[in-house]
């Protein structure tokens, strides 16, 4: 039996638990990692090189713009991180609500998704900050976090729902027949498996969220975009300022998308080995 197994292996495939190193110690690029020149690295290197060249060749406007921006970057990250912290639990609850057999919970969750998805984020921001100010007044940061997390909570709710539904029904049946109750089944069996499908799209939503925080500049929130607009309005250097702003958003987004793809490949570790 053992002999058969060893002989039956296709050429080039290592026995389980061993990493094959080709002769000569040369490690060929893993097909999963992709070659060195791909769209991602090209964009990142391009953006960094352009930004560096601009700042060294014409330090007068460009370096000055770059020095002006860090304060805005802090606010952008603050809004993004707080919104992610609020939106993910909201999305999970919404996703579970959409799958609930309780008609009232289901209706509430579905209505929330329908209503929020149908209103542009910019309108929501204006609504929470300026329109609702008549009844309750919240600070710019709070309004921004509420508006963005409510909006993305609805988007993520659909992602969570799809992820949970993608777990084979047999898993739930098996878990129930082993004596787990409904809550235990969801928490211990379904969600951990759903996570693998959920993480990449949720990561993408988070990146989209970071880009959408540029909308909060309408509330005079001093984020990256607002700093850029303020600088452009003062210096009349529209081309230079928005070039730098675009490059900075691009670099942040590319780094985050890499982080998401690394996370994704970690989660799919066992799938790939099959």
């Amino acid at each position: 039996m053992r002999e058969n197994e060893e002989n039956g292996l296709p050429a080039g495939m290592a026995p389980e638990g061993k990493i094959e190193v080709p002769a000569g110690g040369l490690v060929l690029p893993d097909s999963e990692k992709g070659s060195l020149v791909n769209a991602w690295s090209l964009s990142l290197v391009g953006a960094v090189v352009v930004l560096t060249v601009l700042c060294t060749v014409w330090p007068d406007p460009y370096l000055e713009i770059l020095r002006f921006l860090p304060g805005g970057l802090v606010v952008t990250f603050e809004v993004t991180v707080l919104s992610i912290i609020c939106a993910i639990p909201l999305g999970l609850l919404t996703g579970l609500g959409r799958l609930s057999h309780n008609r009232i919970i289901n209706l509430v969750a579905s209505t929330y998704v329908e209503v929020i998805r149908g209103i542009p984020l910019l309108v929501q921001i204006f609504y929470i900050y300026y329109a609702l100010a008549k009844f309750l007044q919240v600070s710019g940061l709070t309004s921004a976090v509420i508006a963005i997390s409510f909006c993305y909570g609805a988007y993520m709710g659909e992602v969570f729902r799809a992820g949970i539904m993608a777990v084979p029904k047999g898993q739930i049946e098996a878990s129930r027949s082993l004596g787990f109750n409904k809550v235990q089944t969801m928490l211990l069996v379904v969600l951990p498996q759903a996570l693998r499908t959920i993480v990449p799209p949720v990561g993408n939503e988070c990146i989209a969220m970071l880009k959408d925080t540029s909308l909060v500049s309408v509330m005079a929130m001093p984020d990256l975009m607002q700093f850029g607009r303020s600088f452009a309005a003062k210096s009349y250097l529209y081309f230079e300022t928005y070039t730098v702003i675009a490059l900075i958003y691009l670099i942040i987004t590319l780094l985050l998308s890499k982080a998401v793809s690394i996370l994704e490949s970690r989660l799919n570790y066992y799938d790939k080995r099959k």
Partner: protein
Amino acid sequence: MIRRLLCALLLPALLCSSAMAAEKLVVATNPEWPPMEFLDDNRNIVGYDVDMFKAVAAEAGMEAEFKMTAWDGIFAGIAAGNYDVIASAVTITPERQRAYAFTVPYYDVQQIVVLRKGNSASGFADLKGKVIGGQIGTTGVFVAQKSGVDMTIREYENVGLAMQDLLNERIDAVVCDSPVALYYANQKEGFSDQLTVAFRTEATESFGFVVRKDRKDLVERLNKGIEAVRAKGIEAKLIQKWLGE
């Protein structure tokens, strides 16, 4: 060369056919700066600048077509050639003069700081540690920044939103051109009973119409128009009508 010839041939023909139609200028304005320019109940762009520029253009033998434009980017638009003139309470500053051409000044203003009733301040120093709002890219914001006083400056899309936030007690003060501040503090319904003028800056600023740098000819024609409007007493009437002075 051919194009010029064609123009020379076609121009008289065109002029004759349209019964000597006046040259049309596309004029950008940001109608969120009452009473200089704003939208009336029928969504027409009205205000002092609008009437003033129409009179000036008429004296210079031209017609004006107003185009609603956001303030943020109004200068980028003229550089791109989207319109011929900006008539939108633009203060003549050395920085702007470097990039654009201005007509002679047509109106002088100061900056005024507006507070909620019951508060007082006699200068920027009294606003230390407070939050002051203004419209992004306006000289009011620049004056507050240059004052060197340690206060938070928030730059809004338009001055109306800043005034609204002042009423909502999210900010402590708003700085803007004197006609606009007086309009909100004395005239505008829903605002005038809750707002008060704190102080004015000493320095005066002058408004000018903005033209692209390579249109010196247009600047000269408009300057002559402004002169004529003044000589005929139209300017005084318009000031009386819109600014009540």
